[in-house]
């Protein structure tokens, strides 16, 4: 009986993945939702992405070395998938929706031309720009997240900035 009791107590002493994930969650949730929002422009979808990222983190807790980095990368890649799906959807439903609502949403600029232009950039450029200029990540880290070479990241950022410069020139 004593041996069984000892074994049981050993089992309960193992720290749970949930408790550790919860700590990371408390610390980074709000920051990640803001980051995801900047990448995809929808808060509801941003919260979904971030929650999914934490769910993944908990499932892989034992193999993840840098939890904060892992969730950030997961959110960035989730944002890219989201943007890809949304573009496919827009291509299919855009014409129909525009006809129904009698206007083209994209042709109505919002108050901030930089934000508007950011929303029209290719998704990799947008994600790279947000990681660089909001999360202040170095090229190497962005490259690892996007699965490309650092030189490609520099090129993505360069092209993104060039488009921003071009599109917002009139307002200066």
């Amino acid at each position, binding site marked *: 009986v004593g041996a069984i009791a000892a074994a049981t107590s050993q089992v309960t002493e193992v720290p749970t993945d*949930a408790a550790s994930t919860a700590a990371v969650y408390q610390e980074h949730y709000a920051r990640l939702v*803001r980051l995801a929002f*900047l990448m995809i422009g929808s808060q509801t979808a941003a919260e979904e992405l971030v929650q999914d990222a934490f769910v993944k983190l908990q499932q892989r807790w034992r193999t993840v070395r840098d939890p904060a980095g892992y969730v950030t990368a997961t959110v960035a890649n989730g944002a890219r998938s989201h943007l890809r799906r949304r573009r496919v959807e827009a291509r299919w439903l855009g014409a129909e929706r525009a006809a129904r609502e009698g206007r083209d949403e994209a042709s109505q600029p919002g108050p901030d031309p930089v934000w508007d232009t950011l929303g029209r950039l290719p998704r990799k450029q947008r994600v790279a720009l947000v990681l660089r200029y909001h999360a202040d990540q170095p090229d190497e880290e962005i490259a690892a997240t996007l699965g490309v070479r650092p030189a490609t990241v520099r090129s993505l950022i360069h092209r993104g900035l060039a488009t921003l410069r071009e599109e917002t020139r009139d307002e200066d």
Partner: protein
Amino acid sequence: MRTEDRLRQTLNEQAADVDVTPPPWAVVRGRARRSSMRRRAAVGVAGVLALAVGGMTVAGFNSGATRRVTTPPGGEATASRPSPTTSGPAASAPATPPAPSFGSTAPASVPPSGHAQLTSVDVAHHDGFDRVVFRFGSTGTGLPGYSIGFARGPLYHDASGAPVALEGSVAIVVKMVYATGGGTYHGPTTITPGLPSVLQLTQTGDFEGYLIWAIGLRAQAPFRVSALGGPDRIVIDIATP
């Protein structure tokens, strides 16, 4: 102002506008637990045409997307009617069989009483999904049993073995058992709606009680299945991108 600084400023302003209240961790964790349970359930039935066991599974869209749905012939929706597997000699048996009395050496078998009769196949786009509806006539046995899941290899026509030509990058195979379209289905056996998700449907078999259709999708997408009565129909909703 430099473009970089304008961008930095815009990002900060936009981020500051986001009002975030983290939901309790337990709620998010609940999502994790549910999703892993679904995964385990999916593994349990995947790849098995378990028509003889299990109740009807009707679930919402699942991000896993490779789930397979199986029901016995005459599923939940037809519970009030004697189903093909229990008609015949066994139909009079009580719900809880008594201990067997070993009184006979005669063979035991339960012949099917008939077939579900397909009358129409419809496909249309709805908000967020494409819907495929297999409708069955009142002259048959109502709803057939079915097994619905993504194809795990090339498709071949039932009986002939000829390869199936189907548009799309992946296919959902809809296998209906004790079902036929013979004499009741007069529509085309290949339908090409070209919807956001569903590119083409084709009948790949109507042979020896197995009625099989394949749905060609643009890309793998989550789907959900409902079996409805009055009129009897199997409804497959496939999420659109």
